[in-house]
């Protein structure tokens, strides 16, 4: 059977549907009037594009100071949460892979729950935990919350990688006189690295994008980029800066992903010995 015309039309429509807002984000970054969000003045005449929002970002103008602060806070939290959840997630995945038993099936269920539960439930339960422990909400509570849900994603990606892992390699290392630490750092870790990096990237994107959980545990005055933007949408004249900043982030991620594709494409994959 040849390709279906109808299916291809639906696909083209869906792609357009998915890309219209992205194109608008880029276009809105050049909008001249930040209050009415339009390219036209009150008489309906076209005013043209402006680069002033980009200038505001690069000169670190006072009017966008808190936006930039929230942006750096987001980057810090996402970076730290990724690091911590990579370490915790890898150890947890190793434990799940190596040991079987009732304790481990509880462990597996615990790790799996954040993947299927809606964000808002994780948010409210963490908030209740912090209230019960009478902790002041702020930077640390956000970090803890982010680590909580990032760990699950890292565990799942590392576990997927561990499924193809040949345990005989570790045994061979032991036979050749390696201690457990040496075997882990020089044999297992390099093999698991691609899984850990993939999980870490996933954790980073989820953490930097999270708004629901953060808005429960951020307390007063500590805003990450997404929560700041959502509070900004109600009253602000600097909205195009948000779009300009998002465009820059989009270009940055595209370049990063392109580079990583280029590097991984050039590397010859290690052949699995039989």
């Amino acid at each position: 059977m040849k390709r279906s015309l109808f299916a291809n039309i639906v696909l083209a429509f869906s792609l357009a549907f998915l890309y219209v807002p992205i194109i608008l984000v880029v276009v809105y970054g050049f909008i001249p009037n930040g209050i009415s969000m339009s390219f036209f003045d009150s008489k309906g005449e076209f005013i043209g594009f402006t680069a002033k929002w980009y200038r505001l970002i690069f000169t670190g103008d006072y009017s966008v100071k808190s936006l930039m602060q929230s942006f750096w806070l987001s980057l810090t939290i996402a970076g730290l949460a990724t690091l911590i959840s990579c370490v915790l997630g890898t150890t947890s995945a190793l434990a799940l892979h190596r040991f079987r038993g009732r304790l481990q099936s509880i462990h597996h269920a615990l790790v799996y729950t954040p993947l299927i539960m809606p964000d808002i439930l994780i948010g409210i339960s963490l908030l209740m935990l912090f209230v019960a422990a009478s902790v002041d909400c702020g930077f640390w509570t956000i970090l803890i919350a982010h680590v909580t849900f990032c760990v699950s994603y890292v565990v799942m990606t590392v576990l997927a990688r561990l499924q193809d892992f040949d345990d005989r390699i570790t045994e061979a290392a032991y036979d050749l006189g390696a201690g457990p630490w040496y075997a882990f750092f020089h044999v297992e870790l390099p093999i698991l690295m691609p899984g850990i990096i993939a999980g870490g990237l996933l954790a980073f994107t989820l953490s930097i994008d999270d708004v629901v959980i953060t808005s429960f545990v951020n307390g007063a005055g500590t805003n990450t980029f997404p929560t700041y933007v959502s509070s900004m949408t109600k009253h602000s004249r600097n909205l195009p800066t948000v779009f300009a900043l998002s465009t820059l982030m989009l270009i940055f991620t595209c370049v990063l992903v392109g580079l990583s594709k280029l590097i991984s494409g050039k590397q010859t994959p290690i052949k699995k010995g039989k």
Partner: protein
Amino acid sequence: MDTWRELVDPDYPAIVWNTLRISFEITVWCILLALPCAYAIARMPQRWRAIIAGSIMLPFWTSFVVRVFAWKTMLHPEGWLQSCYFVFLRVRAWLFDWLPGFLQDFFVWLGFAGSGPIDPASSTILDSEAAVVLVSVYSFLPFAIMPIYTAAEKFDFSLLEAARDLGARSFYAFRKIFIPGIRQGVVSAILMVFIPAIGSYVIPQMLGGTNCVLIGNKIFMRAIQNRNIPHASALATLMAVSVLVPIAIAMWWKKRQDAIGRKRLEEQTARTMVGRV
């Protein structure tokens, strides 16, 4: 227990029902769009598949809030989408008038907006249920396409050709051969859309206004604005139940499917054994 008694007050059942109904609508739209998309991608040459599948995930590299906000600007009362919405409302009212009376009553009872005259002032697309459904479909569509596509990639398309050779029309073959062949993917796509849709909070918050308050918004309102944690946690329990029910059904279904598959396999092996003897 007092908290639970308060929950029975007239507001809450309506909100829970609205949440379930809207999540259901979102899921149906996502699956309807995702099925042909996944089919089209899976039939492409290998090179193109990777590119298209990648470009479906690419929108995720922009912040979710920023994308929702771009939608909010697009749905502005003076924008072109508003005019599309009027056309949509007219068509819907027209279709509604065609339905027999008991179906009309049924839809009204379910909570879908009825027919009636269209008032341009009050029917803005922003702050309406339609906006929430539209943008939710937009944000969950990739989650629906991806599992169906992974299932469709493994599907043996020569089965469809065989069905055609045996005289099946292409849509019949699609429905009877393709969809059962990828049902595992469809089930996970439904879960991937339905569960976050029940828990969604940002989209109704930013686009639904006061016309579309879901459980998520209520929980946030109670927890952050009113600081009424018991109330919020009771609502959260309700939400958890409504999430766990579909998961339990899906798991039960999968177990049954596996059991049926195993039984069929046993029967087949038994038959071949008998044949060989």
